[in-house]
């Protein structure tokens, strides 16, 4: 097995050499500081005056947020990011000269309540758009109502449900990549660097099946093979009985566990393998909000994780990423500046930031004034080829496929080193592209 500790062996897609981090980091710190300083403390009367050219009537964005239920950790960070980006957009003069107002409603991470919240935001609060949903079942439960109400519904979910064509033309996911693209992008690196005989451990529900189906298909396509597929029921609290089923010839163990059982999972995996383990690759979804240095996670040392956007500041030291982190309130370790123990969900929440800027862009490009302009707004979105990296898109450039209502972007692979995450590779946008299976543009508006 190759030694992956040398960072110079993982050049990134856009030519930023990871070894040049320290120089870039210093530049980013200075620039980021300047940008943040210029954007975080503008007196209200100044940006109020910026609206004079437009209407004073605010753009109302309905935020369907997981404040309670299984998605509460993500919801808290989604809310913090949304607050930060809204503040920034308002300081920049709002959207099309109109101030932005967020109306948040908790959906309890429940699809039934989710549909009711979409209804409430649209019919009672009269919002212009509904935005921000993460958990797939809530998106799928809410999307039909958004389609019936004919209100644009911008989700930040990373599920494949949008691009699969299962939903409707009013639903879009332009600010975050979907799990199929993530898995597809990971496959070549895993196969080239870790091994070709893979055992997958995944939760026995839809999120796990997306990984199982798309990753195993990519493995077969690239000449590798699946040694075993281990689905873990959601009610499981101990995993020891599953580890003996991992075949001895496994070169890579691919895990994507989600939920409170992850600490037990890692601990028991360590007890099973000891020092003689295969290469291990996983998705950070299970560890969002969890400090990698948490006692019990030591076994992850030297293993690899997918990240949507690096948790640690030195993982992607660009000026825009620094400005985004400053505005959201993240320290160098990806935790809250107010509480170092409160670790962020940075691989997902950047999608809120980017989606809000996309709403701004399509409103301004389409000339949206009120709900009668929804068809023009959606057609404008479908015609946008992508989004350039910048303060609006700190995670990186995006290619937007209008027929799928889905963005594609770069992904990160990080190695756990000394209880931290060290980015060792960035994929290109092309690495995650796949053949479209849907075309929303043929549906009537």
């Amino acid at each position: 097995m190759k030694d992956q500790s040398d960072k110079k062996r993982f050049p990134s897609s856009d030519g930023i050499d990871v070894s040049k981090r320290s120089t870039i980091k210093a530049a980013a710190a200075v620039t980021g500081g300047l940008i943040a300083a210029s954007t975080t403390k503008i007196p209200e009367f100044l940006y109020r005056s910026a609206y004079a050219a437009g209407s004073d009537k605010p753009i109302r964005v309905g935020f369907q947020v997981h404040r309670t239920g299984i998605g509460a950790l993500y919801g808290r960070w989604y809310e913090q990011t949304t607050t930060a980006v809204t503040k920034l957009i308002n300081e920049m003069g709002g959207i099309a000269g109109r101030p932005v107002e967020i109306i948040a409603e908790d959906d309890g991470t429940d699809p039934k309540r989710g549909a009711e919240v979409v209804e409430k935001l649209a019919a009672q609060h009269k919002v212009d758009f509904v935005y921000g949903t993460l958990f797939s079942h809530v998106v799928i439960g809410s999307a039909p109502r958004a389609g019936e109400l004919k209100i644009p519904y911008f989700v930040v979910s990373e599920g494949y449900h949008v691009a699969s064509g299962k939903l409707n033309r009013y639903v879009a996911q332009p600010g975050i990549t979907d799990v199929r693209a993530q898995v597809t992008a990971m496959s070549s690196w895993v196969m080239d660097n870790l091994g070709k005989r893979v055992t997958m451990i995944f939760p026995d529900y839809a999120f796990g099946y997306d990984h199982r189906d798309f990753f195993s298909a990519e493995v077969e396509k690239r000449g590798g093979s699946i040694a075993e597929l281990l689905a873990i029921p959601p009610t499981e609290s101990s995993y020891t009985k599953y580890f003996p089923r991992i075949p001895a010839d496994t070169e890579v163990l691919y895990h994507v566990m989600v939920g409170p059982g992850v600490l037990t999972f890692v601990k028991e995996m360590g007890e099973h393998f000891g020092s003689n383990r295969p290469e291990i690759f996983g998705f950070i979804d299970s560890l969002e909000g969890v400090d990698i240095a948490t006692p019990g996670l030591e076994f992850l040392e030297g293993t690899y994780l997918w990240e949507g956007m690096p948790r640690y500041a030195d993982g992607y030291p660009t000026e825009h990423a620094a400005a985004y982190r400053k505005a959201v309130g993240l320290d160098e370790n990806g935790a809250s500046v107010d509480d170092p123990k409160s670790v962020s969900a940075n691989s997902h929440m950047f999608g809120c930031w980017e989606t809000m800027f996309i709403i701004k862009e399509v409103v301004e490009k389409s000339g949206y004034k009120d709900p009668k302009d929804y068809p023009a707004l959606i057609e404008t979105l479908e015609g946008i080829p992508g989004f350039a990296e910048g303060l609006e898109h700190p995670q990186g450039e995006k290619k937007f496929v209008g027929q799928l209502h889905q963005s594609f972007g770069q992904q990160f692979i990080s190695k756990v080193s000394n209880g931290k995450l060290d980015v060792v590779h960035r994929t290109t946008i092309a690495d995650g592209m796949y053949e479209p299976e849907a075309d929303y543009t043929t549906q009537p508006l």
Partner: protein
Amino acid sequence: MNRRLTHKVLLLHLSIVAGLFLAQFFLPEYHHTNLARIMVLATFAAGYNVLFGYTGLMSLGHAMFFAAGMYATGLSVYYLDFGALSAFFLGIAAAAAVAVLFGLFALRTSGVSFLIVTMMFGQACYLTILYFNTITLGDQGFTLSNNLAPLEIGQQQFAFSNPSVKFNGAWILFSISFVLSMVIAASPLGRVLVAIRENDERTKLLGYNTYLYKLMALVVSGSIAGAAGAGYALLFSYVGASFAAILYSIYPLLWTLLGGAGTTLGPLIGTGTMFYLIDIASGYTTAYLFVVGGSLLILVLWFPKGIVGSIRDRWIKWLP
């Protein structure tokens, strides 16, 4: 006329049915759809009330009947292109079949044992839906809006996305279950069920086969719950495993307790009160579940018979 089905009782029920129908012409858009949802969920609670309120059998597995109706309807539309009506009746039949099968085993127990068995069956049903994820699409579930053809009656077509179709569909569903509850409550069957609730052994001594009556109550209860599940799938276009989870077995219990177990009006009042308690409280505080919990605590301590049960006890003795 049955002596318990007095003119007053009949008039009250028909007035409520008529009032709900007329509400669609006055309610603002948001509350219009809310009431449609409440009526579908109140149908679920009405089904639960037949078993819990009248027969005295507390179940923590009623989500399985709701899910049986929901999935039979949803899957037949999604995979087999069934029309709305045939899918709906298939949903009821599936729930009834599950209720018969379940009852044959579970009714051999009683009291706390029955409660535990219902919970275990309910969980088994939930896990079965997850297990056959290639068909049921697991926890994410699926939508019906791309597959469901409008309902055709004569030359008329009724699209389920139309708010009036949602409302009137929910109204018909609830009205049938509501009137059925009233008829059961006033019928000799209802009296036997109440007798079983009050004292199973004495009812047996009077010569009734209580096992059969309980099975009958369970099948009626499960079928009504299944009809609500089927109705929810058609009217709100989503089918998902979360509706089979234990929370959706607890909900009808709470709605029924809040409204008043063993009252025909209780399920509607309980479901509506809980819905708006959550809806309004969530607008003021993120701790809205604390408000809901506190309200339930007050109810249990001072109004153990629920809203309608307390009204019946104190003021309107003739409420069924």
